[in-house]
């Protein structure tokens, strides 16, 4: 009786184990087949979005390889280290692209990709992800309206500091009917990113090693 019970348990356990192994190997096999394609997709999609704000013919280095990590900074708004993509032409700085976070959107964080030319002008801004209201706040997407493209060519001097606001607050940037908080949050985040670039422009085109030497992580923590 009891040996029969143990036998049954063992068979059931063995069957479960067998199906577990079968399922795992199936997923593993498909993972192997699709891995390269998925990696390539992610890279291509990243490069595509970078190229919408840094023209592909303006630089000739490998944008996805030429990156450094910079520590958390309140002007960037990100909660983790930020990756800086460095566009160079014949080793001369052309532009940097990095993502920033606007923490004060209408419903949570808005993630933004910004590119700034070496001379401090904005090359382009795009919203990567957001949770703003469909139909109102989502006009910040390039696919829905050209609002986000109006940042191109702007800099800390153009317009002057007082006017880096939405029109309702006395600035030059449009708000949307029924949605002021969303554009206001983005204008603020982009403005801060320009200050970050002004303060760090020399560091941002360095390699990771030189950057870490000039900007030791401990020092940054004390500053914060």
């Amino acid at each position: 009786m009891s040996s029969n019970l143990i036998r049954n348990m063992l068979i059931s356990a063995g069957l479960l184990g067998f199906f577990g192994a079968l399922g795992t190997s199936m997923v593993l096999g498909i993972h192997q087949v699709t891995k390269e394609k998925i990696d390539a997709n992610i890279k291509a999609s990243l490069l595509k979005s970078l190229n919408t704000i840094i023209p592909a013919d303006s630089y000739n280095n490998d944008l996805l390889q030429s990156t450094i990590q910079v520590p958390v900074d309140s002007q960037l708004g990100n909660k983790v280290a930020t990756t800086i993509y460095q566009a160079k032409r014949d080793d001369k700085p052309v532009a940097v692209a990095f993502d920033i976070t606007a923490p004060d959107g209408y419903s949570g964080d808005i993630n933004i990709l910004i590119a700034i030319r070496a001379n401090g002008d904005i090359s382009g801004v795009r919203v990567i992800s957001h949770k703003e209201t469909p139909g109102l706040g989502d006009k910040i997407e390039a696919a829905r309206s050209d609002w986000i493209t109006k940042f191109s060519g702007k800099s800390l001097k153009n317009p002057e500091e007082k006017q880096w606001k939405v029109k309702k607050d006395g600035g030059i940037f449009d708000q949307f009917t029924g949605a002021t908080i969303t554009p206001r949050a983005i204008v603020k985040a982009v403005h801060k990113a320009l200050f970050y670039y002004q303060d760090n422009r020399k560091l941002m085109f360095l390699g990771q090693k030189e950057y870490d030497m000039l900007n030791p992580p401990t020092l940054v923590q004390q500053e914060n």
Partner: protein
Amino acid sequence: MAEEIPAQPVYGPITKEGLWNNNAVLVQMLGLCPLLAVSNTVINALGLGLATIAVLLISNASISIIRNIVRPEIRLPVFVLIIAAAVTSTELIMHAWFFELYQILGIFIPLIVTNCAIIARAEAFASKNTILPSLYDGLMMGIGFTLVLVVLGAMREFLGSGTLLAQAELMFGEGAKAMTITFFEDYKGFLLAILPPGAFMGLGFILAAKNWIDKKQREKQRQANLLAKTADSTS
């Protein structure tokens, strides 16, 4: 478990059950979470529907194959395992070959695993039938689910954005851009239809329509019966 199918697998009734009489959404009310979340455009709905069909086919077929090996006491964990493996594979394949659609559907692809319609078919049909009827049942249930998704998606997209088949290129390639139908240029949009409450209302209307059609048919049937009876008694 060992209860074998009738000698002739009956495909007609399976079709009717899957598409209408026992529709996963309209009758069984299963898989509503992904249904309501992703049905904001036709293309999103179609994407999730096709992924669900794929998972249903794989899971029903595999479960039917192993139905005589798996003991009743461990069948549920095994079913769950198979469904999870099928969903993960589908997700990886979509990530590799339908990258942009994958990005839009995002979390709802892995969430197919929680679609009760799939384990319900495994338990109620595939574990009792041979492979071909099981495959066919998976296909019909999946199509039934997809049809409701697409109808709801069309309603919400039409009312909410005034278009149909927007972003068709995500699924059918660049050439499909022309498939997008814009009904009103400069349409302001109807926010309610796009937001989740719109999904619930849309589903409510579809349910009401189905019940109304069923009722009409029952009445017709009853009248036909009555007529036949009176004809009998007079003759």
